């Protein structure tokens, strides 16, 4: 490649500043979307993986129970296994920091007498700083970072809540656990195991036993031997296998966000195509000259692609930090989703690993080159005479419009046939359909524009003349409208999904949450069912003045025999309504009365829809739970709607749950008041009676609001992606109008020569911007409706397993339409002003007939 030629090419981009800026922005925003999502995805996985590493970093194997914990009596049996060089039990407890409602601390109870070092390194001072660990009640080591956040120092008291109890811990030392596991949470505390068992109600139980395998033994062999020796009540995993649990758990969540971020890249590619095409058309005579002077097609192609690659790199350099900053700004929302929906650790640190930088460069460069390839090939394949003459792409695109549309329709038919003919068995089939929808929309755009706008009678110097102008410049307008249509389809599709999902959820909440007051312990949603409300509190509330009925719920984490993680819940009612197993779980399949009886008398269960879909289970089938003492087959009596967890939930009779996992307490309590009772007044009275207890009391109204808040938070990142795609599409509108203004300079000069004022030309330009916006919206609306159907009926069911009822969120869509049109209009202001200043001297050009 001749450097002087390349410099000459880059000089053009330096002069065409707006074009360059928009190209770089197209790449930057696409890269930013991908970087933002992948940073959050990696952060989510690392948060879990980092936690595992911090706790079990030196372990080769981890022994876990089938329920939330296991009996400490297993420990000697683990040590007795010949392949075990060392083993140490751990208690892990999540507690809420008092007076900090949303701050949770994971406490690690360790055995200082275990025949190995601590699972976390203590630095050079070793145990010297830990002299109070055994002797001092409530002694805990915290990270310096967390202590700073709480404004506490060594010897200060840290009040935490677990179950319904508040306990005061003493900060004995500050230890930087991240020196050992950089991605570990800063919200990690360390204390003696027996103290942890005692303080957090885990007497005789441990959360896990970490194992160091003897030299020369393969961890897999030792794991198998341990599983044989310890029986079916335990699982033995490597730390990597545990981390993979999170990978599997988050697969659908991550895939959805990744797919959304790729739409921004696709829209960016359209923008780059438009910019490169405009640039090349402007320079076609230069290229003609080069070709006539002996430059080969390959040299021309190489030069153009190299120029674009440099712009792509510039866009990547901008997009990388932009994406990372966006990720940082949204980390709280994603963390909230991880903790509330997936019960995983929150993300505290985000990193930009070299692999992600490489992905960003690949996306930026690849997107730029992909966008530039067609126009570059088009220029390179022309002979010098054609290049030195007028450009021919406009006429060609207009002529090819029906063929593009036909190709789109054939593609639709082929993909639908593939889906109907067996493709639907593939879990990713919904994404395949959505992808092809996004490809088909641009293929339909030229004909849509040509037929809709090209046939409009102009009838005056107004919007219709502007729309006719759009149809006459298909080579520019098609790409802007297509990019906007793809974006609008995404916006509308996701808005319909979210609106429908929210309405469905709202209905489900109304059906499910019918009690007046809900009571939980402080950390019940974090500790996987290992802590519960004390019987004293339950009895006090169940017998409280005005309480008509109390539904206890026990909820714990468990697994099926094939390793599927799920949650299990059982209800028990006391009060005037009499015993009742199921507390208003709306059933998708199964007769409510029979289900009630089967749960009570036959030890049956009700599974939720996501579990039924993911595991392919139906009423009459058997669910095989991995119980504390081995596999437990449970007949499935019904399938219920549930939107609280993607992983699946199983409702059992209380005695059945006790039999499978051992007895346990009440995780939460739903209280129904007598009709004449005021909820708020009763809540106040209960709070007064429970003063000093770490009990969360929520009214029905507040709980519903919190659930919907969590729902809205879950889609916060989605909205950022939507906004990014919209910005790219609006930039595309602006770019198109600028290109059109340049290409139509003679036309505008003609209008000026005929007496058109600048204001008239500005109005014409704004009308064209609005026209582009409207056309993109119209096409995108149709695409969005189809995309919504794919998202709701296919992707959601295949990946999440929920039934979502279609709802039309009319006001949300109206607001979006207003934003899109306002965006298109705003994007048209600068090009319109610029076009209005076209001098009549441009009439010396020969662009018109």
């Amino acid at each position, binding site marked *: 490649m001749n450097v002087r030629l390349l410099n000459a090419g880059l000089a053009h981009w330096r002069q065409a500043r707006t074009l360059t800026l928009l190209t770089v922005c197209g790449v930057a925003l696409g890269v930013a979307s991908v970087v933002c999502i992948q940073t959050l995805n990696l952060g989510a996985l690392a948060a879990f993986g980092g936690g595992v590493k911090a706790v079990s970093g030196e372990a080769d194997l981890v022994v876990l129970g089938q329920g939330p914990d296991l009996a400490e009596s297993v420990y000697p049996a683990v040590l007795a296994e010949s392949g075990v060089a060392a083993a140490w039990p751990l208690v892990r407890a999540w507690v809420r920091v008092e007076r900090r409602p949303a701050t949770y601390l994971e406490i690690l109870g360790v055995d200082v007498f275990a025949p190995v070092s601590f699972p976390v390194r203590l630095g050079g001072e070793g145990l010297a700083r830990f002299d109070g660990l055994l002797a001092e009640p409530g002694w805990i080591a915290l990270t310096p970072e967390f202590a700073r956040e709480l404004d506490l120092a060594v010897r200060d008291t840290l009040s935490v809540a677990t179950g319904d109890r508040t306990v005061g811990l003493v900060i004995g030392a500050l230890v930087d656990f991240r020196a050992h596991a950089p991605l570990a949470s800063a919200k990690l505390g360390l204390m003696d195991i027996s103290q942890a068992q005692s303080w957090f109600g885990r007497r005789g139980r441990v959360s896990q036993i970490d194992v160091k395998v003897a030299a020369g033994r393969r961890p897999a062999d030792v794991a198998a031997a341990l599983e044989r020796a310890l029986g079916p009540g335990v699982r033995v995993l490597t730390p990597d296998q545990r981390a993979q649990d999170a990978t599997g758990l988050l697969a659908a969540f991550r895939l959805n966000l990744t797919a959304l971020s790729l739409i921004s890249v696709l829209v960016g590619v359209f923008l780059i195509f438009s910019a490169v095409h405009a640039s090349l058309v402007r320079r076609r005579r230069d290229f003609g000259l080069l070709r006539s002077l002996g430059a080969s097609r390959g040299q021309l192609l190489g030069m153009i692609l190299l120029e674009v690659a440099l712009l792509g790199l510039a866009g990547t350099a901008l997009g990388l930090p932009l994406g990372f900053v966006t990720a940082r700004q949204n980390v709280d929302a994603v963390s909230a989703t991880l903790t509330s929906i997936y019960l995983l650790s929150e993300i505290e640190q985000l990193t930009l690993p070299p692999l992600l930088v490489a992905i960003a460069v690949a996306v930026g460069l690849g997107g730029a080159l992909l966008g530039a390839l067609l126009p570059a090939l088009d220029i390179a394949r022309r002979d010098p005479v054609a290049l030195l003459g007028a450009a021919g792409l406009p006429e060609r695109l207009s002529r090819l419009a029906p063929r593009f549309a036909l190709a789109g329709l054939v593609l639709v038919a082929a993909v639908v046939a593939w889906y109907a003919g067996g493709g639907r068995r593939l879990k990713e089939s919904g994404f395949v359909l959505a992808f092809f929808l996004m490809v088909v929309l641009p293929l339909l755009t030229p004909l849509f524009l040509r037929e809709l706008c090209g046939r409009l009678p102009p009838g005056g110097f107004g919007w219709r003349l502007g729309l006719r*102008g759009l149809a006459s410049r298909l080579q520019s307008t098609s790409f802007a409208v297509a990019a906007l249509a793809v974006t609008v389809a995404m916006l509308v599709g996701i808005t319909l999904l979210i609106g429908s999902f929210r309405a469905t959820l709202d209905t489900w909440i109304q059906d499910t949450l019918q009690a007046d007051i809900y009571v939980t312990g402080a950390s019940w949603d974090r500790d996987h069912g290992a802590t519960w409300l004390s019987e004293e509190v339950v009895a006090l509330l169940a017998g409280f003045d005005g309480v008509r009925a109390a539904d206890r719920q026990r909820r714990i984490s468990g697994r099926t025999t094939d390793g599927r993680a799920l949650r299990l819940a059982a209800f028990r009612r006391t009060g005037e309504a009499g015993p009742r197993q199921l507390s208003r779980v709306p059933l998708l399949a199964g007769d409510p009365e029979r289900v009630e009886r089967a749960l009570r008398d036959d030890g049956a269960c009700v599974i939720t829809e996501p579990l039924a879909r993911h595991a392919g289970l139906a009423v009459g089938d058997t669910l095989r739970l991995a119980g504390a003492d081995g596999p437990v087959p449970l007949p499935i009596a019904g399938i219920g709607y549930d939107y609280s967890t993607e992983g699946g939930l199983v409702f059992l009779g209380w005695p059945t749950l006790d039999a499978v996992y051992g007895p346990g307490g009440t995780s939460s309590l739903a209280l129904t008041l007598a009709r004449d009772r005021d909820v708020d007044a009763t809540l106040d009275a209960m709070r007064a009676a429970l003063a000093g207890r770490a009990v969360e009391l929520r009214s029905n109204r507040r709980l519903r609001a919190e659930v919907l808040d969590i729902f809205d938070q879950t889609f916060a990142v989605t909205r950022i992606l939507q906004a990014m795609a919209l910005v790219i599409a609006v930039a595309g509108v602006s770019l198109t109008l600028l290109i059109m203004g340049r290409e139509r300079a003679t036309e505008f000069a003609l209008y000026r*020569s*005929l*007496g058109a*004022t*600048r204001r008239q030309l500005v109005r014409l330009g704004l009308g064209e911007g609005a026209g582009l916006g409207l056309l993109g919206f119209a096409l995108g609306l149709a695409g969005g409706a189809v995309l919504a159907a794919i998202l709701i009926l296919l992707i959601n069911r295949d990946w999440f397993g929920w039934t979502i009822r279609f709802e039309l969120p009319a006001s949300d869509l109206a607001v979006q339409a207003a934003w899109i049109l306002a965006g298109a209009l705003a994007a048209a202001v600068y090009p319109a002003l610029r076009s209005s200043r076209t001098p009549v*001297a441009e009439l010396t*050009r020969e662009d*018109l*007939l």
Partner: protein
Amino acid sequence: MPAPTAHATMARMQRPLLEFRDVARAFGGRTVLSGVSFRLDRGESLSMVGRSGSGKSTLLHLAAGIDLPTRGEVVLDGTPLSPLSDRNRSLLRRRCVGLVFQFFHLLPHLSVADNVCLPGWVAGDPPRATRERARELLAQVALSDRAGDPAGKLSGGEMQRVALCRALLRRPPLVLADEPTGNLDEAAGRQVMDLLRQLTRDADAGLLFVTHSREQAALAGTVLRLRDGRLEAVA
């Protein structure tokens, strides 16, 4: 378009339609026109000849109010152009001037009739009257049967006839033509020139055209030559 009163008509008849008073135009340090003075009345025709770069197109731009002189004054229909805002010059041009270009400048995505209607649309004239006037003009240039065709399907001579119709749509008192036959063969050029003269004569409009052809220039009542930016009469 309201009918002018008798008094206003008389006043208009007495003043020149277009007057250049010692006009000069320079671009940067380069003087293109210098000391140009002439006048053109209604019903008169004036041709301008000169070599390439002699300032002919600049003179036409000044006459149309598209450009302003560096010195001197251009007066169109009694109105000095220099003090006017861009908007008012546009409005004056809309009312008083019809322009014909060497490269026709028809919009390819519009029909023949729509191209003719364009000045009426820009001015906001009633659509039906505009359409009627376009039809009338197309009949005069024998293009009635092509009114609905896309402009791109016409021959060069036909396109220039359409451009003539467009220039005369709003009955401007002044028609400015920049080498109207420069892009046509001899026969088509002659036909267009005849039509241009006939249509402007019928409309009692003044005609100022620029040409390279001595033969066509001689068809005008007055022939002026531009040489190095200065005007000289041709015998």
